[in-house]
C-alpha cells in the first residue's frame, strides 16, 4: 500500500508561557521550540506501519519553509521513502489554501491512502484533512483511532461522544485523519537519521504547481489574539491540610458534587 502522509511543524507549547506579539495576530515564536505536530506523528507511524505490513511506500509532505524540512527529515528517518516540501514562500496560508497546494502535488503521486493528523497543535482547526479529501474527490473519515486492512477497503474505528465507538468500512483510495493514541510512534534512531540523508527530499514551488500566489489569499485570517479576561471567583484555601480538606468537602457538598 502506498501512503501519503501530510505533516506540519508546530511550536511546542506544553509548559510554555505564550506571548502575543505587538501586532496581536500571532504568538511570539522566537523562544519556542518547534516539533512535529503530535497528531501527525501518529499519522506518520500509522503510515510507516502500513507500509511495513504491505510492502508499500510512504511519501511525506509538508507546506512550509526550509526550517519545516525538519519534520520531513524526521519522517525519512522513521521510515518514509520520499519527502516533498511545498515552499510556502512567506505566505500566510489558511486550511483551504494548504489543502489546495497539497492536492496539486498529491494528484501527481501514486497512492492508495492519504493520512493527516486530526488537527494541528497550534491552530486546532482540524480542517485540512477534510478539505484535501474534497479537493481530491476522495472519501474520507476523521479522527480515526484504528485501521484494519481489507480487500480494496479499510475497516476503521472512530470514537464518538460518550464513549461510543463506531466501526465503518471505507473504500480505497481514501483519506483518513488520525487521532492520537492509535499507535505508539517509534523513536527516531541514529541509523534512521543516517539513512534519511540519502533519501530524496524534493522542494516544489507554488509556480511549479501552476498556482498564482495572488490567488492564495486566505478566506479566514486572524483579526486579533488576546488573553481571556481574568475573572474572579477563585477561592484560595490555605492553612492546615486537614482543615483545608474539610473545607473542600463542605464546598463539594454545598454545590451538590457529592452527597
Amino acid at each position, binding site marked *: 500500500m502506498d501512503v501519503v502522509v501530510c505533516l506540519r511543524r508546530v511550536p511546542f507549547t506544553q509548559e510554555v508561557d505564550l506571548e502575543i506579539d505587538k501586532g496581536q495576530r500571532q504568538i511570539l515564536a522566537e523562544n519556542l521550540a518547534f516539533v512535529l505536530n503530535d497528531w501527525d506523528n501518529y499519522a506518520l507511524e500509522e503510515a510507516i506501519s502500513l507500509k511495513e505490513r504491505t510492502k508499500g511506500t510512504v511519501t511525506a509532505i509538508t507546506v512550509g519553509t526550509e526550517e519545516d524540512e525538519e519534520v520531513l527529515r524526521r519522517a525519512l528517518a522513521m521510515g518514509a521513502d520520499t519527502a516533498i516540501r511545498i515552499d510556502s514562500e512567506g505566505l500566510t496560508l489558511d486550511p483551504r489554501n494548504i489543502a489546495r497546494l497539497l492536492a496539486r502535488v498529491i494528484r501527481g503521486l501514486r497512492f492508495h491512502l492519504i493520512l493527516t493528523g486530526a488537527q494541528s497543535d497550534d491552530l486546532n482547526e482540524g480542517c485540512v484533512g477534510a478539505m484535501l479529501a474534497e479537493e481530491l474527490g476522495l472519501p474520507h473519515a476523521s479522527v480515526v483511532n484504528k485501521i484494519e486492512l481489507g480487500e480494496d477497503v479499510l475497516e476503521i474505528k472512530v470514537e464518538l461522544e460518550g464513549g461510543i465507538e463506531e466501526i465503518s468500512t471505507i473504500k480505497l483510495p481514501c483519506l483518513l485523519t488520525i487521532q492520537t493514541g492509535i499507535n505508539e510512534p517509534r*523513536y*527516531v*534512531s541514529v*541509523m534512521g*537519521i543516517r539513512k534519511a540523508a540519502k533519501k530524496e527530499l524534493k522542494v516544489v514551488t507554488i509556480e511549479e504547481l501552476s498556482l498564482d500566489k495572488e490567488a492564495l489569499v486566505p478566506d479566514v485570517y486572524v483579526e486579533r489574539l488576546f488573553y481571556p479576561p481574568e475573572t474572579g471567583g477563585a477561592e484560595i484555601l490555605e492553612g492546615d491540610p486537614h482543615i483545608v480538606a474539610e473545607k473542600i468537602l463542605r464546598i463539594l457538598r454545598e454545590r451538590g458534587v457529592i452527597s
Partner: protein
Amino acid sequence: MDFDLSREQMDIKKAAREFAEKEFPKIARECEEKEEVPRDLLKKGAELGFVGVFIPEAYGGAGLGFLEHALILEEFWRMDPGLGQQFCSLTFGSEELILFGTEEQKEKYLPRLTSGDALMGFAITEPDAGSDAASASTRAELIGESWVLNGNKVMIGNGSLADFILIFCLTDPDNPAKSHRHSVILVETNTPGYEADKILGKMGIRAADTANIFLSDVKVPKENLIGERGKGFYQLMAFFDRSRAYVSAHGVGLAQGALDLAIKHVKSRVQFGQKLAAFQVTQFKIAEMATKVELARTLTYRVCSMLDRGQVDSKLVAMAKWNAGRTAVEVVDEALQLHGGYGYMNDHDIERFYRAAKVLEIYEGTKEVEKIVIARRILGRF
C-alpha cells in the same frame, strides 16, 4: 569559523532528547533510590543507535564522531545524570580498542557493545593509584602463552556488570621509566579469579554501576594485550584526551538540566506577591547560569569537533573538562538555591542533580589534574 551543528547533528541531538524526555523520567528516581541499572532501557537505547556512535561502521557503530557522542550524552545527562552516566559507561574504554586494538580484537568485541549485547569497563584506579595512575600495582605476568593478573581495582564503572573489562596493569615493573611499566589487558569477566563487589551508597549517579574489582590469578590469553606492551600509560593518556572531551558534555548536560529545572521553578513559585522570576536577583542568577552553560557547551563542542578532525589538543580538552565540571557544580548549586527548601527534598529532581554534579570534578581526571595538564603545556615542567 562555523559554530553551527550540521542538520544531521541537530537531528541526532533532538532524537536523543526525545528518547530521554520520554523514557528517563519513568524510572530515573527509582533507579537512583534502588541503585539499579535499567538493562531494558540500555538495550532500547542501543537498538536506537545511541550507544557508541563513534565506533566505526565496520564494527557495528554509526561511524560518527565524539561530537555526536557528546550531543547524545549531553541530552541524556540533561534528563538524568545517573542514567546518562550508565549509557556513557557502556562503551567506556572502547577507544583503546579502536586506537590500539588488533583487527581480531575489534571484530570480536566492538559490535557486541553497539548492539547492546555486552557492556564493558576500563579499570584504572587502585587504592593507592588514583590521580597517580602510573603507580598502579595490579600485576600482569606473562607465563607461557597467558597473562596472569593479580591485584585490586577500585571505583570501576560497570565493574559488576561488564562482560569484558580493560585492566591497566603493571607488566614491566623493572623498566627504569615509570611511564613504560604498564600495559592494557582485556579480561572477560567470566574468567576464574575475577570478582567484583558493587559499591552502594555513592553520593550521586546511583543508577550507574560502580564496583571494586579483585583479580586473583586471572589467566587470559597472551593475545588479550591491547596495543603495545609497556605503552599502557601513553595509551591511557591518549584515551583521556578523548574521554575527557565527551565527559565535558556530562557537565554541560547536567548544568542545562539544572538550569531548566530552575527556570521552571522560578516561573511558577510566588513569594512576596510575585513570581520569583520577577525579582532582579533571580534574573541575574538565571542570566549567569545560562551564560556559563553556553560557554561550557561551546568549548566542549569545539574539543570534540577537533578530535573528529584528527586534532588532539590535551590542553584544550583538559580546559573543557575542568570548566564543564565546575560549571555543573556552580549552576546546580544556584539552581537548588532558587528552589529553596523544596530543593533540599528528594521529591524534587534538583536534589538528585546536585548530588550528581560533584563527581564531574573528580572522575576522568580531578580538576587539579586538569589544571596540571593545562599549566604544563603553558609553562612547561618544573
